[in-house]
């Protein structure tokens, strides 16, 4: 089944409502908010590389409120244990049995703050939940809530005492981006409303969680022309053959890009993907999946620069594939 133009129009309207609602809390960050919802509706997870105080928690909380869902925040520390995230089984003396106490991952949107401060074991526990959307404790499997999304953050400046996320685990995040500081006008507006703490601001629910699941299912039906598949394939090929790259984008990365592009297209009211959708999401979807050559890194090459260069060098499709 393929999405119809009418479905696309309705999808875009709903997304605009969600974005608009969150934007009332996170001022001047339309692109990041839209990206976050794109990841959410693509059933992926988001990695934010940001310094403290840029509104990560507000974003997670506002997104959860907008979809009438739940959100939890976990501050990752070196002594955080896997059970502190997934939950633990406790013996209930009165009932005489073990009871499962769900951890903070049991929410629609989980904010894993400074994920790189926890030990690799704890990180792996979270990443397993992200991949499988379920928790297994003492032999019992517990499914997390749906829709489910993890927004993890990393501090790109302070690296001391941190455990860098392995590349294989970075690959599990659909996108990586940063919120960044607000612009001047937005900062003024934030300061004008300083008497109200950000997390106290309430966002009116725009959609039910069930509707989000429907939207995600609908986004998967967006049409992708074979020339777009070819374009994505050429893009990831280019990341593998670039001399500055030690490890290029995996097939999972290419699939993630197509998945995100579908949602992006629907969010623009289209029932088909165009090259602009791919280009718009290439950097947040692909950049964190690259491993650069150390010499290139030493020369100042960044993954984002390299993706931008690949986009410049790879001509997008402009003609319909001959039948």
């Amino acid at each position, binding site marked *: 089944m393929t999405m119809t133009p009418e479905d696309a129009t309705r999808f875009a309207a709903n997304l605009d409502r969600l974005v608009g609602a969150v934007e009332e809390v996170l001022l001047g960050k339309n692109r990041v908010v839209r990206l976050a919802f794109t990841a959410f509706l693509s059933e992926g997870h988001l990695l934010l590389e940001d310094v403290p105080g840029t509104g990560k928690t507000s974003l997670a909380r506002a997104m959860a409120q907008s979809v009438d869902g739940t959100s939890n925040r976990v501050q990752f520390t070196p002594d955080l244990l896997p059970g502190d995230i997934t939950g633990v089984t406790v013996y209930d003396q009165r009932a005489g049995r073990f009871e499962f106490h769900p951890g903070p991952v049991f929410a629609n949107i989980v904010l894993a703050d400074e994920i790189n401060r926890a030990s690799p074991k704890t990180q792996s526990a979270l990443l397993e939940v992200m991949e499988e959307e379920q928790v297994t404790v003492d032999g019992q499997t517990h499914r997390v809530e749906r829709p489910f999304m993890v927004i993890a953050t990393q501090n790109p400046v302070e690296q001391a005492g941190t455990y860098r996320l392995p590349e294989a685990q970075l690959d599990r995040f659909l996108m990586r981006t940063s919120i960044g500081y607000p612009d001047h006008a937005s900062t003024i507006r934030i300061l004008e409303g300083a008497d109200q703490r950000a997390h106290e601001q309430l966002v009116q629910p725009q959609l039910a969680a069930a509707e989000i699941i429907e939207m995600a299912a609908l986004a998967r039906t967006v*049409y992708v*022309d074979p*020339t777009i598949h070819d374009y994505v394939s050429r893009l990831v090929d280019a990341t593998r053959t670039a001399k500055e790259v030690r490890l290029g984008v995996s097939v999972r990365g290419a699939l993630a890009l197509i998945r995100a592009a579908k949602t992006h297209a629907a969010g623009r009211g289209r*029932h088909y993907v165009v090259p*602009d959708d791919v*280009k718009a999401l290439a950097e947040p979807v692909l950049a964190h999946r690259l491993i650069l050559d150390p010499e290139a890194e030493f020369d100042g090459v960044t993954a984002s620069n390299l993706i931008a260069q690949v986009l410049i060098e790879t*001509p997008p499709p402009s003609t319909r594939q001959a039948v």
Partner: protein
Amino acid sequence: MTGAADAAERRIPRPSRGGGAGPGGVVGDGPVAIAMSVLLVTALLAAALVPWWPVYESGAFLVAAVVSVVAGATIGVLGARLRWRAWVVVVAVFAAYVVLGVPVAVPGRAVAGVLPTPAGLVDLLAGAALSWKQLVTIAVPVGSYQALLVPPFLLGLVASTLAMSIALRTRRPAAAVLPPAVVLVAGIALGVVHDDFAIEAGLAFLVSSIGWLVYVAIAQRRRVVTDRTVDAALADVRRVVGASALLAVAMVGATAASVALPMPQRTVVRSELQPPFEPRDHESPLTGFRAAFEPDVARSEMLEVRGLPEGSGIRIATLDSYDGVVYSVGGSDGAAASGQFTRLPYRLDQSTTAGEPVRLEVAVDAYGDVWVPGVGRLEQIAFEGARSAVLTEGFHYNDVTGTAAVADGLQRGDRYVAESVAPLPAADLAELTPGTSVLPAAPELPEELQRLLESWAPVSAEPGARLAAVIEGFHREGYVSHGIGDDEPPSRSGHALDRIAELASARPMVGDGEQYAVAAALLARQIGFPARVVVGYLPAAGAAAAPDGVRVFRSADLQAWIEVQDADGAWVQVDPNPLPRPIPEREPDQPTVVSRPQSALPPPADRTPVEDLAAEPELSPDEPDDDGAWWLEGLLAVLRVTGIAVAVLALFTSPFLAIVVAKLRRRRLRRNAATTVERIEGGWQEFADTAADYGYAITPTATRSEQAATVGGLGPLVLASVVDRAVFAPDGPAEGDDDRVWTTVDELQRRLAEPRTRRERLRAAISLGSLGGYAGSRRGARS
């Protein structure tokens, strides 16, 4: 679709031309960019200097050209690299001019060919103002004569500096073709009428110009798309290939035109200037012919000549203009038919002239005229004696007629040495074939001469045989009498048509060289030979040169003969004068049988001959349908000039027309593509190409939306989304979408053109921006 576009913004913002070139200029300031710029600009200048070569034909010119271009390029590059201010560049150019100018442009004034002398500096500085006029009033080639190398040296230096500065420092490096273009135009204007390398020089400049423009276009695109890759480089290659294809079309067109069309004679400054020597101001040497035989002067020694070939005479002047009264020396109006009197710098190249080299040493005795006697075609002349400087300064030579003159006239005691190429001995006249030279028009042949021709040389014979028969006729029936002495029968002087008619009809036929030469020349021309009269001294029959090789010519040795042109271009001397012999008694007048009305004689002698020639030299008063012929010839002349002008215009505009035609064909192919979606894709490409031609940085790896954003406005964005939907949506385009897209494309193209001037629209129409690279890349994107 159209409605959406109409609702879009009406105004499409202009691109920021030049792409924000930094101080280093658009083409960049790296070593490779500078080297490429120097290479291409130098090629431009080299091509622009080609038309100057025929003016000099000397190694000194090559040195001056190379030094000027290298010095100018060095100043330009240093100025760009070191950010010199304009006045510093000007000072540097002046310094280079002063330091390098003397050894390069005035080598005769340099010590050991290198060190400038004060006199050389004065000549150099004065040459900047005075040498231009001298250059166009002197016979070419001029070699390194005096300061005549100053114009190309100065122009090359300034143009090279300007071109390099424009190329490396400005936001419009394409304008670097302008200074070399000025050098090219100056070379043509100050050059020669017939340039053997005209087409080659033009094409070389065209190739260099397009090479530079393509390079600039590629450099500008590189500023948009940084860090070139293979695909981008391929796009550049396609651009170069596209330009090369256009060049090929232009070259084929130019070559075909040069072969198919008659090469028109150039109008250059040299041909338009009034010649410094005016032969009209001097009496024709034929008018005083009879006076040379007056008893009191007949024995006067006129010239002493050493080195004259045995039996050969010496020419005073060649006369090719006849107005029915006086045969005179032509070339007063600069007409190509009679050549032109120009100054002779040091030597003429006569290597293509057939004949034997002759070195004449001439000492002037009683001879006193402006015409300088000589033989054949002059190569070099050196005056000696006290008046050598004056004579050298006033010497002029007409290489077409082989006539030389000095403004102040020769005097007793003057001496000169002339190196010439003497014509080969006359071949058998009967084997001659008329040449193709065009001479000034002559009047209608008198009836008497016409009858004489018919009786001696029937039309049925070959031209050579007819000419031989005419000469034989004069030899057979003619008698020589100057009509001066008592012992000579009457013989009227003069060579007006009535006298020539009298010569032809009188029996016995009596006259002297003056009449026989004119009559023979007229008859030869009537047969079809280009013929002209030569006045000179011929050795008396049987007279031998002195033992020391010196031949003395006396006044009575004056003679007139003719020379006719053979098909190989050589002028063959023919003497129609009969040998002196007793003259029989005059026959009684016989009634003349009049077969048709007599031709009216030409205007009376009191009219100035030259005025007659200038008036209507080719008109015959008894021509009944003169008016019709005049109109017809006028019309044909206008058509010929118009045709040549159109052909030249077409030649120069052919590359641009080729671009326009290529774009029209591209549009037609897109508009009539096989499928609806292809027509829609073609519509977008047409719009994007138009935008590229207007200077928008349409990058080949951008999506349609990005390209639309480059142009700006809502209309292009709407069109991009419509085309994207047709291409990428599962249901494809609807019926009629292609027409709507093309309607929108036309509308957007109109909006792009609307705010621009006619010049900008013309520049976009002939822009190479959308040809080759861009379109090719789009095709390459198809997968």
